[in-house]
Each structure stands twice: as C-alpha cells, then as structure tokens.
C-alpha cells in the first residue's frame, strides 16, 4: 500500500557547515506515514525544540531532509512532476504555528483566503467565492464583515490563527498538518475549532496531524500520539494508552506537568519526576533523557535505546522496557491505528526474538 504521505528514515541536521560551530540534530531517523484510505488523527507532542516544526517543514517540502526521503503517493517530494506537485499542494495543507510570521503584512486578509480559491479554481462566480470564504470564516467563529478588508496587524493573535485554520478548511485537502493551530485562542473557541477539524476528519475523511503541547486536547481529539524528545521518538502509540498511563519517563514528566484548572491541585513541573540519578555517559551512545531521568541505569549512559514494543499498540524508547521486543524505527506505523476499526487486516503483531 502506498500512503498519501510518507516520511522514510528522515533526519535533519542544522548547522552542518563550515560557518557553524554547533550542529543541531533537529530530527533523527524518523519514519511515519499517512494512509490515503483510512483517515487518521495523530498528535505529535514534545518539548519546545524537540523538532516538531522541523518535521512539519520537512513534510511540506519547505526544507529538505539531510538523509532519508519523503514520498507523496510513492514519489519523492523533491522530484515531483508538475501535475503531481499541484495535487500535492492541494492535498496537503498546513496550519502554521505562528500566525504572526506567515502573513504578508502588505496583503489584506482577503488575499490569504482568495488566493487558494483562485489557484485551485474552487469558485466560478464572485458570489461563490464570497460564500466559500464566509462559510470557512464562520466555522472558526469569525464574522466576514469584521475580518475581510483588514490587514493582519488589525486582527488579534487568535483571530489571525483562526484565519489560517479557515484557509486550510477551505481547500478540503486530504491531510491537514496543524502546527499549534489553537495555542492562542480561549478554551471555548479551542473546543469549537478542534471540533470542526474533527468533523472534517469524520465527514470528509481528511487526515489530521495535530502538533501541540496541549496534551489534554491531543488526548481528546487524536487516535494516535507520537512523543518527540530531542528529535527522536520517545514514545508512540494509541493515545488512550499513552496519555493515561505514560511509560517513558519523559512522557510521565509531560503528563505530570499539565497544570490542572484547579488552584489547589499541585503543579510541580520537573519536580514531579524526582531527581536525576546523575550517571554520565563516556561515549556518544546514551539515552537523550538520561540527564533528567530519575530512573537512569548504567545501560542508559552506554547505549541509545531503540523503541521497545511494550504492547501491540504502543512503544517506548526506554531501557526500563528493554525486555519488550525491539520495534525498528521504520516500523513505527505498526503501533498506530489501535483505536480504529481496521477494515483490512493490519499487520499482525509478531514479537521479534
């Protein structure tokens, strides 16, 4: 089966040049695919700087991977024929993290919505175009009269963010990659917008990659989750397993750090996890989390943990689970889809010896 969009063993290293003193491995040997047939909702979470936006930019072809490849319907993004490229540009839509960055300050908001309608011939008449724009805007709680005709700086942060969501909705793509799409809107509107994204998923079969640091909404709307830590997968699987009972110490830290909307519940952040054991590596192989991990063992500073498949629908890159079978990075897709009824039999779970 060829997926709609596949990332195969991609890595991205920044600063690999003469002028840079430091190199950052923003993403390390990452494999992930979005099926064209079964719509999915996948959350990607991870701390600031863990490589989430880098992944988005790679999937959109805005930057090229240092190694590995990204395939759209089986073809390398870098060598898409013109017609395929056009299909890709429509099929895969992004909602960018930063509503302040993507807007061209010299164009009115209308332009953001009109240009995709024009480029993809979504409307035949002016009235049709207006209707499309009005519909998309109202889905995100904006009123055309108060939005159109304005420049980006004349809108609030959340309003700009919602324009980006409206734009993605307009195109009815196959896949929406949303990088922190609602980080600047209030809880009520957040629920409304995420609900409309979810409705698109259910009614039109649009897959959704939801990148966020908001684990609560990730839990509420997604089926699968990938937790990134310093550019590598720390934990992945069915969101109903991973969030309520995290296995990787980093995921435990993340879940344990969620501030509950109750002033009397404790909010301890890093302290919730306990003090790191203080073991230090000698060589280049070690668990990326060892320096913060209260469970670190000697092996953690000697080897880099691979993913261990602790259950059919979850895997954790932590030696605490070193007894479980190894899950090669490029077979990570096997742990996904646990929450979905599979129409055709998925790869059966076979333990590796």
């Amino acid at each position, binding site marked *: 089966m060829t997926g709609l969009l596949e990332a195969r063993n991609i890595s991205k290293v920044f600063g690999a040049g003469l002028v840079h003193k430091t190199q950052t491995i923003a993403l390390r040997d990452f494999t992930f695919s979005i099926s064209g047939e079964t719509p999915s909702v996948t959350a990607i979470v991870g701390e600031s700087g863990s490589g989430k936006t880098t992944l988005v930019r790679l999937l959109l072809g805005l930057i090229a991977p240092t190694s590995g490849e990204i395939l759209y319907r089986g073809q390398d993004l870098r060598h898409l024929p013109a017609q395929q490229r056009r299909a890709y540009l429509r099929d895969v839509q992004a909602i960018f993290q930063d509503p302040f960055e993507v807007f061209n300050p010299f164009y009115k908001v209308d332009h953001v919505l009109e240009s995709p309608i024009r480029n993809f011939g979504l409307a035949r008449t002016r009235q049709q175009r207006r209707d499309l724009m009005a519909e998309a805007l109202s889905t995100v709680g904006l009123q055309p009269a108060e939005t159109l005709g304005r420049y980006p700086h004349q809108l609030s942060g959340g309003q700009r963010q919602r324009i980006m969501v409206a734009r993605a909705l307009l195109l009815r793509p196959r896949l929406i990659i949303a990088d922190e799409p609602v980080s600047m809107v209030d809880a009520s509107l*957040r629920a409304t917008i995420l609900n409309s994204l979810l409705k698109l998923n259910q009614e039109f079969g649009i897959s959704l990659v939801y990148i966020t640091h908001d684990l609560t909404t990730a839990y*509420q709307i997604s089926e699968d989750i990938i937790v990134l830590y310093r550019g590598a997968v720390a934990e992945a699987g069915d969101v109903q397993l991973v969030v309520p009972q995290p296995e990787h110490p980093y995921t435990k830290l993340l879940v344990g750090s*969620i501030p509950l909307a109750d002033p009397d519940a404790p909010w301890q952040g890093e302290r919730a996890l306990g003090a790191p054991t203080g073991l230090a590596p000698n060589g280049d192989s070690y668990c990326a989390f060892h320096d913060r991990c209260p469970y670190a063992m000697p092996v953690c500073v000697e080897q880099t943990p691979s993913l261990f498949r602790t259950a059919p629908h979850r895997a954790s890159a932590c030696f605490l689970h070193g007894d479980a079978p190894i899950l090669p990075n490029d077979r990570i897709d096997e742990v996904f889809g646990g929450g979905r009824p599979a129409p055709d039999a998925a790869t059966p779970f076979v333990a590796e010896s």
Partner: protein
Amino acid sequence: MSEPNVLRVEGLRVHYQTPAGPVKAVDGVSFAVRPGERFGLVGESGSGKSTIALSLLRMIKPPGRVEDGSVTLDGVELLELTDEEMRRVRLARISLVAQGAMNSLNPVKRIREQIALGLREHGAAREGRAFDTFLTELLERVGLRRGVGDMFPHELSGGMKQRVCIAMAISLEPQVIVADEPTSALDVVVQWQVIDTLRRVQSELGAAVIQIGHDMGLMAHSVERIGVMYAGKLVESAAVRDLFRAPLHPYTQLLIASLPSLDGKERLQGIAGSPPSLLNPPAGCPFHPRCPFVMDVCRTTMPPPREHRPGHFAACHLYETS
C-alpha cells in the same frame, strides 16, 4: 492617603477606527494591581486583552486611540507623560512581553546584540565584561545557556525565543511586567519553568505581573487574581480560588465548563453561538445573545460591575437585587 496599588486603570476606552466604524476593543475597563501582585487577564480571543496591554505602555498605534480613561503607575498618570518621559518609563518601570514577541526578534542580529540594543535604547548600556556577565546572568534567569547569546533567532526554537523576550522584559528590573501570552508557544514543562522563573524574578524584584493568557490551568497556578474579559469589557474579577470555585458570570462559568479534561474521552464543546461584534456590540450585556440565563433587562441594560462578594466583582444582572 497612600496609594496601595502600583498600577491603576480607570475607565479605559480604546477604539480602532475602521472604514466600517469604530471597533470598541476596550470599552470602559477598570482594575488595579498591588505591588508584587500577579494578576491574570483571560477571556475570548479578540476581547481586547492585548489592546489593554499595549495601552498600559502607551503603544497603541493609529488607527487605534485611547479615547478615555486613566492609567496610573505609582501615582503618575502615564497617559499624560510626554513621549520622551514615557520612553524612559518603558522597560525601566513597566515592561511588556508582547504577544508573539518572539517573532519580532530581528532575524539578522545575534541575541546578544538585540539585548544590548534594548539596554542602549533605554539609556542603560553596559559594555565589555560587564555586559557579558549581565547577559549570562540574564539568560540563566530564564533558563537559557549563555551560548544562546551568540545565536540568531532562526537557530532557536519557539520556546527559546520566547524566553529571550522574557529576558529582555526583565532586563531593567521593572515594577510592572506585562506578559501577553508568554507561554502559549511552550510545552508544559517549559511553561512551568518559565512561570517559575517569572515568579522568582518578580518576587526578587517585588514587581507586579499582569499575565495575559488563555490557558485556565496555567492561570490557576500562576496568578493570585484573575480578570475575565468579554467583548471589550471586564465582566468578572476575583481571587483565583474564588473564580474557579464559584464563578459568578455565566461567561466565566461556561468558559470553565468548556475546559477539556484527562478523565476519559468526551466531546469537546465550546460555548454555543458566535463571538460578539465589536463594531456593533449587542445592546445591554454583551453576553446576552449566548447566555443561558438571559432575562429581558439583559437585552437593554449593561449591568455595572459590582462587588457581589468580598473582592469578587461581576457585571451581571443575575446578581442585581432591586
């Protein structure tokens, strides 16, 4: 009588002129903040929170204009200062971490140069070794390695950039720090670190913090008092515990009810109806078209903010006894 508040906002009105008429972004807002207090502002997207933040620093640009009201910092009326006087107050006495500030960092300048420039602009330049020490300490305060000083903004993640902005805002140790969504780009662990830092720094400096945000969970843990904005109005304000335990205003009640939880999957549910127009705001209470408890009087008369319980203010007819 000595003024117990470091900052007092009275009857603030800010409008933006548009071809379709004035947008009443802030419509008669009053509140006060005590020295060292942490005050949170939450509310609908587009309800005027950032506009308040900008007004406090006199940074509203045309077509926006402060129509009316008063902002006093330590007894000094900021709205009457000359531009030059205001320039000296900014950063040194009251500073702002603007919404999305991390993206206004100059892309072609290293972080250290940008921080140095900020100091120089406010007449607090430091040179050579003194600056290096200053920079290292400043970056450390917000949890960044000193090496970050030598980097360009594009080399930093969103979270790192946001911390640079917080570092800039605290660089001159102001009395009031206004932070507009300082952590909405950060993961929960870093959020905690940043809030922890902000809290430590502000208590060291004795500075008050006005923190604007959307994350009610974060607010519950980072401020002492919260104000809730809806359609340019402050509809409720109370000590954090009172606000979460016994919210008075129906908007606040529904906002809290719409928070997602981790106790099992549920349908995410926003407040029914659409956000209000600020061009043609509804008559009476701005929330009346969406309010489940709406009464006749709500459609015609704006309820005044009143102290219904000690320290707990709300503007809602439900609590008006005639």
